[in-house]
């Protein structure tokens, strides 16, 4: 079982948008005019110019102006200086922008920033905040689960989401569960070991060196 379910998308995701277009443009995200939106009475139309929104990032409310077409990933990286999540494929394939939104592992490039209002956005930066270090981070270090490191934050967040739901995974489950992320340097061997070691640490086994239980 993959920890990411591509079918369960929110209406404002770009993939949902595309599917909506194909299905006759019925999704609320693509109503043609503000009047139409109001007539439907379900959604307040925004844009096309930038609009102020508040995003809850790692528990903190953050005010920011975004265009309705802007992805959560681009907003975090470009406007809120949360650059841990990376933009690589920019279309929900590679997992480099993996974050946890409302306790669900998500690709930040497939969520519009305006659609992330009112949701709990957890980024890689939260794993080493307030003087605490989540055990997954040192497990990646100990097992050399990174080379250039560009895919690594995505892997770490995917691992966190996976372990939250699968605290005692087998080796084969780790290989399935992390299947939504791609690496070019070839760090998979280290990642497999790191996730198993982090699982052990999280269950209260030998704590990975350098971790404080966050």
């Amino acid at each position, binding site marked *: 079982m993959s920890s990411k379910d591509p079918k369960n998308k929110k209406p404002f995701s770009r993939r949902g948008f595309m599917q909506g277009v194909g299905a006759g443009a019925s999704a609320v995200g693509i109503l043609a005019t503000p009047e139409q939106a109001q007539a439907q009475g379900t959604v307040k139309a925004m844009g096309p110019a930038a609009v102020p929104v508040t995003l809850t990032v790692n528990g903190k409310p953050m005010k920011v102006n975004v*265009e309705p077409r802007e992805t959560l990933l681009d907003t975090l990286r470009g406007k809120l200086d949360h650059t*841990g999540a990376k933009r690589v494929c920019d279309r929900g394939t590679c997992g480099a922008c993996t974050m946890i939104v409302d306790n669900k592992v998500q690709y930040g490039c497939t969520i519009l920033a305006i659609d992330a209002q009112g949701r709990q956005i957890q980024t890689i930066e939260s794993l080493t905040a307030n003087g605490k270090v989540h055990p997954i*981070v040192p497990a990646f270090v100990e097992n050399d689960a990174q080379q*250039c490191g*560009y*895919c690594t934050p995505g892997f770490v967040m995917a691992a966190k989401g996976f372990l939250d739901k699968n605290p005692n995974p087998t080796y084969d489950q780790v290989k399935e569960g992390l299947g939504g992320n791609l690496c070019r340097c070839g760090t998979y061997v280290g990642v497999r070991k790191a996730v198993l070691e982090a699982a052990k640490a999280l269950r209260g086994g030998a704590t990975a060196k350098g971790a404080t239980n966050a």
Partner: protein
Amino acid sequence: MPNYSWPPMDQRKVMGKAHNRLDGFAKSSGRAKYPSDVNREGMVYGVILTSPHAHCTIKSIDTTAAQKMPGVTAVRVTAPAGTEIQWAGAEIAWVAADTEPHARDAVRAIQVAYNVLPHFVSEEKKSKAGTRAKPAGEQTTGDVDEALKAADGVSEGYYAIPVLTHSCLEPHGQVIEWKGDKMEYWPSSQAVSTVAGDLAQQLKIPASQIHVSMDYMGGGFGSKFPSDIWGAECARLSKDSGGKPVKLFLDRATELTIAGVRPSAYANIKVAGKKDGTITAWQSESWATGGFTGGGMPPIPYIFTGIPNRRLNHAAISTNAGGARAWRAPNHQQACFLTFSAIEDFAAKIKMDPVEVLVKNLGLTARAALYERQIRKAQEMADWKKLWHQRGDSGSGNIKRGLGIALSTWGGAGHPSECRIKINPDGSVELEQGTQDLGVGTRTVVAMVAAESLGLTVPDIKVKIGDNAYPVSGPSGGSTTVGGVSSSTRKAAVNALEQLFLKVAPALNADPAKLEAVGGKIQVKGDPSKSMTWKAACQKLGVSSISETGKNDPKNPMGLNTQGAGGVQIADVSVDVETGVVKMNRVVAVADCGLVINPKTAESQVYGGVIMNICGALMEERVMDETLGRVLNADMEFYKLAGIKDIGEIVVHMDVHPDNDKRGVIGLGEPSAISTIAAISNAVANAIGVRVPRVPLSPDHVLTALYGKNMERSRA
């Protein structure tokens, strides 16, 4: 002259012991700032208009509307009316705007009229290439015709390996900010010390005005040496935007279309020899493309260069596609695949174990003893004697298991490099070097060398790299970095230590030449009772630091580094002959690396080399649309990379051996990334009983080889 040689293998305290990479925490916590993460006050975003046509001329271009779009700060045209474009994705115009969406809007508002011309993008059909194929001229040695006639067995095969893209996860690009006539430059680069000079030439300004900073970069694999037109136009957009900082990185489709490819290679090959496995003749007709400028000439026969009778014909073909760049072991994957597939086919023809055919012919290679030791080791690790069988003799079920083997060779000597070591009165040590860590562990390796040389521990060394203000070190390419930076660091550390000994000797009442630095102390050799701590010793410096440099000179590496790495890999696969799916069971890699400084990151390099080429063996292929002349899969859904569950198990054996250690440090990045494709291709042939001529070994290609469908389309 001081003695710079490495400490004897059994006396090393730091080198040779596994060490976590120093930047592991920064990377795994998302705190590491890559060039594409740089955000500057008032920064604007650059976006490129690229050609949709593979071959065309620009009839007219009008940027009036684009200039008036919201947020636009600059519009530039680099392909004005009359320009001939030779590949889809070629740059035409550039926009900077306050936001990336605004810049994209403005790019869409640029009006271009194209005069579309005929294109050629499918080089595999050599017969259609016409004058685009440039023959290299026939090379002959011995008498091939006679040898073919006299042979006990002759294998004949067609072999094809496609164009790949580098697919760096961090795309090519940079942030540039002018400060008066000086420039801050944050490139994603493999060449911290030389990229400014390259950009300066394009901009016609002194290189001394460009300051390069790059702590991390998201993958290069050979494609990120120059500043490119992307750097120059980023700088010009910044100028035109009133000096505002500009961030310009290629989008994914452009990255996969124009930011470099690995050339393809195709060949019809005959291998002939005797019943006992002795190879007597090689004949090949090969062709390749590296894009519009052609290129791509694999050195075949690979490794077995001493085959007595050889006839080679090669042609480089020009296509209307983005150009080639160095790709982790340039031309070697192709040469290895062509050669070892052909030799395996010869072994199958004479019904002999390919391992024994290789061993029988090692006299035709430059390193017979090394390869034999490595082959035997790999054979043992892979259970070869138990699992190998005659080609196709894989039982009656749908799942067929097979093994395949291939060898590699690479240079890997150290590049020119200079290092500065400062020892401060407070005991702190700074190491400065204008090198870069591509993710291979350079930071960690130089810290380990300095710590070893100074009798300290790794955390005692403050490593400063990724800045062109530091002493010049070469670009990271060709596996030349580790030899260069480790040798220059060793020399700088020995030189600095010699200075420290001069300051400390009077207090210890000893000859400076009799001192040594061990375990955080300076002591008299043979009399450890006469010693002082490192800190106390450094206090003798008074107020001035020691600052000494060391240089690696590739013409005289003084035994610290060398070239010539061998290597053997064996692949173990299972193939489903109903679906054509190849499953990786295991890859065994015996890696030659000379002296190993950090076994942990060295092993990671080998894992990486193997995995990258599992992708190349099973999935990766740039697919061109023959009608439109565009890359059909310039994305990550259909330009496929292996995921974490696709790679099977990988077993690495670092060939750490006193004989190897004596040779000094050798680069490891490329040698580990050469033989996997050939080994997997051979394993598949062994499993299913026929050669799949084309990689990737996708279900389509496997089923075509098995059942003969569609074969005509791939023939020259």
